């Protein structure tokens, strides 16, 4: 057996045996636990993904699976708000669901049950009043592959958001996971469930933030259900330390005439894998998937998207921009399936990349499987460098080279920002981009 497989198995064995300890902390008589038991079996069978699998061809987990992760943090850690304020979009009124080392932090949070439920998964999984919703939605759209199964097996904590019919949530909801580093290496498995009932509207911002140089591995699963005419805007702000890695599994199930937009801003982390799957279960659905990736050093970001067009007259828009410096590597794999019944589908996909150095690379792959004959499907990917003539033009107007490059890169990613509906968030992302590009200029006017 190779050394690598051993490393995989060390952590796998540890996780499988930890499941017994985990069972002592949860209600094993609940029907949820049957789902967990199924899931741990699935994980035990499949294990961690390897590069031999087509979907993981360009992303190796070896470097992050070698650590001896704590699966349950031993101590509870408190964080003072002033110290972590900067990780919130703090200049807006919002609901907050905050976790510290996987444990709910009540004093950093602001949950509600007033007309909507913005609260904890642990409560939703155990309290009878949530039973109907849990039975109907929990683990109904998440995949059954190794990583998602692992999360399902340990699913206990995370955000639970339920928006009833016709309710427009006035303020955004922030879900933030902090890791403090009190463990030498920590693995987190947050589990979120978002249900937007008919004609409701909700905006959610999600962030994973390590406060330590110690390795952190987050394997997150989020299930989003947008029912008839619901609008869900979901923003993922990924700007973690380079000691932290994230495997994000997000599944969106949409009903007729709903709109679901997921924006992913990937500026940090050691390894980030975004699995984002959309399933259209109704007509006239609008699905939007957008992302900006700006990374350097040896960072790695992998976007794997799936849009499954099942019914007629639906749209999907994918727009991913990537800027890779130093020895950074990127992956974009965008799969679109258009079923035979899904006539009049309009599916658009674009992936544009800029490589700033000889050592950076991007593997980009559109994957279209179209079984209907009356559809509009377009896809395009580009890989290039910054336009030298544009640089000279800007410099000749007095804009220094570094700032000119930054402005061009900002402009390159601007399409993605245009659909961000929360101005303060947009401003924050803009600032992060400037920071990431090492300049101090205001891009917005």
């Amino acid at each position, binding site marked *: 057996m190779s050394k690598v497989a051993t490393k995989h198995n060390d952590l796998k064995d540890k996780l499988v045996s930890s499941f017994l300890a985990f069972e002592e902390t949860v209600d094993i008589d609940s029907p949820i636990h049957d789902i967990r038991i199924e899931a741990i079996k699935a994980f035990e069978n499949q294990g961690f993904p390897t590069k031999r699998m087509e979907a993981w061809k360009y992303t190796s987990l070896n470097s992050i699976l070698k650590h001896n992760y704590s699966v349950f943090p031993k101590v509870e850690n408190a964080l003072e708000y002033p110290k972590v304020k900067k990780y919130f979009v703090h200049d807006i009124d919002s609901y907050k669901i905050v976790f510290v080392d996987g444990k709910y932090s009540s004093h950093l949070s602001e949950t509600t049950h007033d007309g909507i439920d913005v609260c904890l998964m642990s409560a939703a999984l155990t309290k009878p009043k949530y039973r109907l919703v849990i039975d109907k939605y929990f683990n109904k759209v998440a995949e059954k592959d190794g990583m998602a199964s692992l999360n399902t097996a340990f699913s206990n904590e995370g955000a639970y958001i339920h928006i009833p019919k016709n309710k427009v949530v006035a303020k955004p909801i922030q879900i933030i996971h902090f890791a403090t580093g009190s463990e030498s290496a920590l693995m987190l498995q947050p589990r979120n469930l978002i249900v937007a009932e008919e004609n409701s509207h909700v905006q959610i911002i999600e962030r994973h933030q390590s406060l330590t140089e110690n390795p952190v591995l987050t394997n997150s699963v989020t299930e989003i259900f947008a029912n008839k005419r619901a609008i869900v805007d979901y923003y993922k702000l990924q700007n973690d330390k380079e000691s932290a890695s994230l495997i994000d599994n997000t599944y969106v199930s949409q009903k007729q005439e709903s709109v679901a937009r997921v924006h992913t801003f990937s500026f940090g982390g050691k390894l980030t894998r975004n699995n984002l799957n959309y399933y259209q279960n109704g007509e006239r659905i609008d699905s939007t998937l957008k992302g900006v990736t700006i990374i350097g050093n040896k960072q790695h970001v992998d976007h794997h998207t799936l849009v499954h067009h099942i019914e007629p007259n639906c749209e999907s828009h994918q727009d991913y921009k990537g800027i890779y410096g130093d020895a950074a590597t990127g992956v974009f794999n965008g799969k679109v399936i258009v079923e035979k019944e899904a006539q009049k589908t309009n599916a658009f996909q674009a992936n544009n990349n800029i490589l700033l150095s000889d050592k950076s690379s991007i593997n980009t792959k559109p994957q279209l499987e179209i079984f209907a004959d009356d559809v509009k499907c377009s896809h395009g990917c580009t890989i290039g460098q910054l336009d030298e*003539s544009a640089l000279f033009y800007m*410099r*000749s*107007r007095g*804009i*220094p080279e570094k700032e000119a490059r930054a402005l061009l890169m900002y402009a390159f990613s601007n399409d993605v920002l245009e659909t961000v509906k929360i101005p303060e968030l947009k401003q924050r992302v803009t600032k992060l981009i400037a920071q990431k590009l090492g300049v101090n*200029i205001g891009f917005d006017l």
Partner: protein
Amino acid sequence: MLKINDLHASVEDKAILRGINLHVKPGEVHAIMGPNGSGKSTLASVVAGKEEYEVQSGEILLDGENIDELSAEERAHKGVFLSFQYPVEIPGVSVTNFMKTAINETRKAQGLKEMPANEMLKMIRQKSELLEIDRKFLSRSLNEGFSGGEKKRNEIFQMAMLEPKLAILDETDSGLDIDALRIVANGVNKLKSEDNAVIVITHYQRLLDYIVPDFVHVLYEGRIVKSGTKELAHELEAKGYDWIKEEVGV
């Protein structure tokens, strides 16, 4: 203000400028004319600091300082402005945002504070009126989808905003209809003062009816082969360039 002494420059080992001498004083307008491929645009790019061009010998002095080693942005900060023959399209950057960044970076380099937003807006309004530019135009992406005339007007608008000491207009008249030509020339004339200078590069005498030069130079095969006053431009218009070639013996 600008003194070019025996300037030789090449691109990819191909000699383009072969000994240029030019002296421009404050308050003057110089026109540089010449057939295609004579080196006019190269001269403009070399003065503005385009890196692809290599200066082999000679010097470019701005107010007595050799600017040959300076970057394009440093030259801009010292008051050099180039109006491009083919302005570059920059999607995603609005005209206003671009100007704001250019002005504030220039001010930063000059040790000045950023221009207050209201002052900036006032200036933008004044200068856009001067060039008869629609305000809606200013929020559009720089040069993207602009017509030829709009691009050139936008170049002169930028010149008006940056108030350069030395402006080089590289074939600003190409692609302009007569109305746009008049607006552009009017803008340039209004910006003229005793303290700044303009170099107009053009094929045709047409623009020089509106921007009247003090001196006209003919560039041929990388050298200024003839200089004169504005009458020289008329002569070129009437007779073409062949007689110059004969006269200078090439």
